[in-house]
């Protein structure tokens, strides 16, 4: 049976994982597709997935009263969408919406959390990878809030 293993094995996010860990992750993976304009998740909803974007573009939005939905980041091919599945209370902190037709691999968070509890090596490897993504996004956010193109520049 054809699985997502060949795709996941070579993805930069999972590069270097032991074959048995890849197999565990494959067991929680499925292909998903979002049409342009389709909401992927809403702020406050239960966060039980993360996504490896294969193609397309996704907007992360925050709704602000009197200002509407503001896009704070966009993600595209190769990017990872979502880490709230990993951190209690497992709720999304943003809205995510497909800007264009988007294909991704969805990873079932509940399934992965269970496997990480059973195999701490897998848990550590995943945490290291997510810590790296969180660090990159935090750094980008810090630069973003500098408003470096403002009046003084």
């Amino acid at each position: 049976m054809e699985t997502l293993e060949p795709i996941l094995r070579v993805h930069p996010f999972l590069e270097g994982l032991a074959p048995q860990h890849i197999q565990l992750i494959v067991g929680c993976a499925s292909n998903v597709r979002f049409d342009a304009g389709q909401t992927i998740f809403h702020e406050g909803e239960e966060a039980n997935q993360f996504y490896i974007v294969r193609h397309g573009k996704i907007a992360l939005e925050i709704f602000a009263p009197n200002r509407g939905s503001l896009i704070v980041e966009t993600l595209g091919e190769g990017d990872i969408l979502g880490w709230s599945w990993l951190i209690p209370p497992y709720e999304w902190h943003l809205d995510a919406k497909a800007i264009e037709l988007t294909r991704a691999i969805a990873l079932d968070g509940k399934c992965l959390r269970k496997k990480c509890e059973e195999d701490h090596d897998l848990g550590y490897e995943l945490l290291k990878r997510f810590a790296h993504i969180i660090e990159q996004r935090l750094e980008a956010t810090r630069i973003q809030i500098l408003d470096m193109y403002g009046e003084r520049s």
Partner: protein
Amino acid sequence: MANVPDTGLETMTASAEPMVPALFRIQRVRQETHDTFTVELEPPSRRKTFTFAPGQFNMLYVLGVGEVPISISGNPADSHVLIHTMRAVGTVTKAMRTLKRGDFLGVRGPFGTTWPVAEAVGNDVIIVAGGIGLAPLRPVIYRILAERERYGKIIFLYGTRTPADILYRRELEQWRSRFDLDVQITVDRAQAGWRANVGVVTTLIPKVAFDPANTIAMVCGPEVMMRFTIQALQKRGLGLNDIYVSMERNMKCGIGFCGHCQYGPMFICKDGPVFSYDRIKDLFLIREL
């Protein structure tokens, strides 16, 4: 420098009297964004042309108000019109924004060093512009596109504050439609409905394809943006001597006499504004220099 056809016209380059401005007539003033505008200037006499190389700047003098250094942002192949884009932030640029077609501006220049357009021949080129930093890089794009076959991949990354702050919108759309140019635009924030990227320009660098061993990077924007851009380029494997930046300081004379733009042992107006990063790396990281 641009090849100027032999038309019998007199070519203006750096003047023998570099402290004396020549009067250029304004042909057109165009509002680019809410705080940014472009002036198109005609050389003093119909028999004169003006040549420059990408990266150079002029000292522009608003009569009776003052003088400011502004990068040249037009096409180096067109020596009959001189184009400058600037943000109205100080006394001089705010006064300049009120000028109209037919008014005069004093021009001294061109001054300064140039982007390594010739050195980049045969290589991939990554151009990273932030905000008004696109203006000094636009001549590079004109020059490269005029000789596109001489270069490898051309990647142009442009970051700005919001969609309303995007410069040269029509030209960017034309460039984006080309198959031989990878153009990526990102803004720091946008309303829902914006279909391009949101995020700082540095986040685009890991995602674009180029050969780090054979790539020249040209970076212009606020210094903090250039700092993080250089870090991202280094992570992709670019050498310090393959990264070029355009620096900005308080330039007055334009010829290295007055010392206002001193930058360590150098003067930005004479030794810059374009530097390879390995030349200024130690200075670049000194705060308040």
